[in-house]
């Protein structure tokens, strides 16, 4: 990864951090509803992996902590914020909300609220890609706690048996809502659980974007070359509670302090400064630009956007003007 890429990724991660922090404020101000699960602390996972893949081209799904993945795939942050505000200009016209961001144009095929729910979809998409002969891959982000759902095992089995182009990315942030992984899961190293399905797997530091990127490059190449699925486990940490309604009282302060010293943004920033690629002032300017952009364009857009159309409440349940309700020939 060259210095320009590192600087670009630093900016992207910083943007994601500030975006999420601004979401926090907007939620407290009651401008965002429909719950909110924030990403700070885990940025190197989404950016490290997707930067090594082809965002906008590869098909991506994830769980409910999904804003940042959508944006990295190419979703317009203005539309994502408007979606959180529940406005008509949102990425799903204010009907999906925080946990259901979609941008099918950029092949971001959804955040999903239900834990473990979308795993089978990732395999179905991979089968579709394979049948149509495309060179895309299906990338399925998942959390460590989701791996205790039955869908995890059903999905791994199918992906391996059919040698499907799926990259599973486990962002292991050590907590399933409020329960630490060693209290919920017999095997805490998630990559080990995959061995039983003959899927190659690796575990890397999810706070160091260079390490994530390097591991993801190997994983993506494996999957894209037709060798079947790959499982990448990234050890990471979320700074806030599971959601906005989570008081986060279950984690030791010492543990939080330890992880805050391994902040993916600070680590990359300090590395760039030490290498003489940027100065502290450069970083400050970058941060100011990002904050400006979020406030003056993104928040402004969401604030000023119209309310969702109540007259469309019953639309989009089934297709409008469906020809098959009248019969027809094929």
């Amino acid at each position, binding site marked *: 990864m060259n210095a320009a890429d590192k600087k670009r990724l630093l900016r992207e991660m910083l943007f994601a951090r500030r975006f999420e922090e601004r979401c926090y404020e907007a939620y407290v101000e009651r401008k965002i509803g429909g719950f909110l699960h924030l990403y700070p602390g885990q940025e190197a996972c989404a950016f490290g992996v997707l930067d090594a893949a082809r965002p906008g081209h590869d*098909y991506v799904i994830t769980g409910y902590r999904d804003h940042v993945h959508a944006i990295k795939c190419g979703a317009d942050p203005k539309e994502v914020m408007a979606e959180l505000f529940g406005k008509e200009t949102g990425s*799903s016209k204010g009907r999906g909300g925080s946990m259901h961001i979609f941008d099918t144009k950029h092949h971001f095929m959804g955040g999903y609220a239900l834990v473990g*729910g979308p795993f*089978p979809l990732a395999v179905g998409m991979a089968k579709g890609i394979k049948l149509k002969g495309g060179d895309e891959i299906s990338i399925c982000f998942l959390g460590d706690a989701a791996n205790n759902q039955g869908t995890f095992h*059903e999905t791994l089995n199918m992906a391996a048996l059919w040698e499907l182009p799926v990259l599973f990315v486990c962002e292991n942030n050590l907590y399933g809502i409020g329960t630490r992984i060693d209290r919920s899961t017999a095997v805490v190293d998630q990559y080990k659980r995959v061995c039983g399905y003959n899927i190659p797997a690796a575990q890397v530091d999810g706070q160091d974007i260079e390490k994530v990127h390097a591991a993801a490059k190997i994983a993506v190449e494996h999957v894209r070359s037709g060798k079947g699925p790959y499982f990448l486990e990234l050890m990471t940490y979320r700074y806030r509670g599971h959601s906005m309604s989570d008081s986060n009282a279950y984690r030791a302060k010492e543990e939080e302090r330890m992880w805050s010293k391994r902040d993916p943004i600070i680590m990359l920033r300090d590395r760039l400064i030490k290498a003489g690629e940027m100065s502290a002032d450069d970083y400050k300017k970058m941060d100011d630009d990002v904050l400006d952009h979020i406030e003056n364009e993104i928040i402004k857009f969401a604030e000023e956007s119209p309310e969702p159309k109540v007259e469309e409440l019953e639309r989009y349940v*089934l297709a409008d003007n469906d020809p098959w*309700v009248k019969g*027809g020939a*094929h």
Partner: protein
Amino acid sequence: MAELTLVEAVNLALARALEIDPDVVVFGEDIGINGGVFRATLGLQARYGKERVMDTPLSETLIAGMAIGMAAQGLKPVAEIQFMGFIYPTLDQILSHAARLRNRTRGRLHCPMVLRAPYGGGIHAPEHHSESTEALFAHIPGLRVVIPSSPLRAYGLLLAAIFDPDPVIFLEPKRIYRMVKEAVADDGQALPLDVCFRLRDGSDVTLVTWGAMTHETLQAADRLAQEGISAEVIDVATIKPIDSATILESVAKTGRCVIVHEAARACGVGAEIAAQLAEHGLMSLYAPVQRVTGYDTIMPLFRLEQHYLPTSARIVTAAKRTLEAA
């Protein structure tokens, strides 16, 4: 034109869909090499290859979820669940994702998938292999629930279901899979969804039903005719969204209605039809609406199943009750 059973008509429609549209894929447990537990997919893998006609593991949640993922890739997946009693692990996928993708994305994504399952009693099977739980799915916004009652309707409705842009739960009444044969032309002609089929015209009472119960209901209509009572018989076919206009129109003419289904009574689709009549057709009714249904119990084992399933005698009795009222 070939004389086909209902299950053969299902096979013919699947073959036709695979033939004319490369995006159609068929999969499920035992459906490839073995041709399916009821042979609905017999010969399809040999003709269309194992990339498009796929045997899957015994993983129903996965089967349903994969179908959604394939639909999101522009395929038209048709998945088979071996018996309706095995369909419940799919509910999470069907209710939480298949039925909601269109709404959640405001139309940017939709889910043209079919989940086929044989359903209903009368084949001497245990509970999970005999029950009729169509109302569970009919309650879910964003789904179609379609039930054919004859070879012709199986062919035409399954084609429509496969090409329809929304998810369809297609329930096949397995008791009548091989009961009657009918001439079915393999012309690719789909039948309309979301409409009832009037199987018999009549003027005294409307008998409303679907699935295998159309046979008992038509028998009941014959017996009523022998006693000079003219019964109209309606096959609902698409039970969600339901074509209440046709039912209301018929009841406006006859003034009496008997609803027949083999599913348990409470909160069954019959309750919805009765509610529609109460809301929109009360002034045309001469008598209280009657329901002839299964019972609010677990589907019994084979020695008792004939006591559970509605009979033509019970339908005749209910029809006469509506005539005695006024």
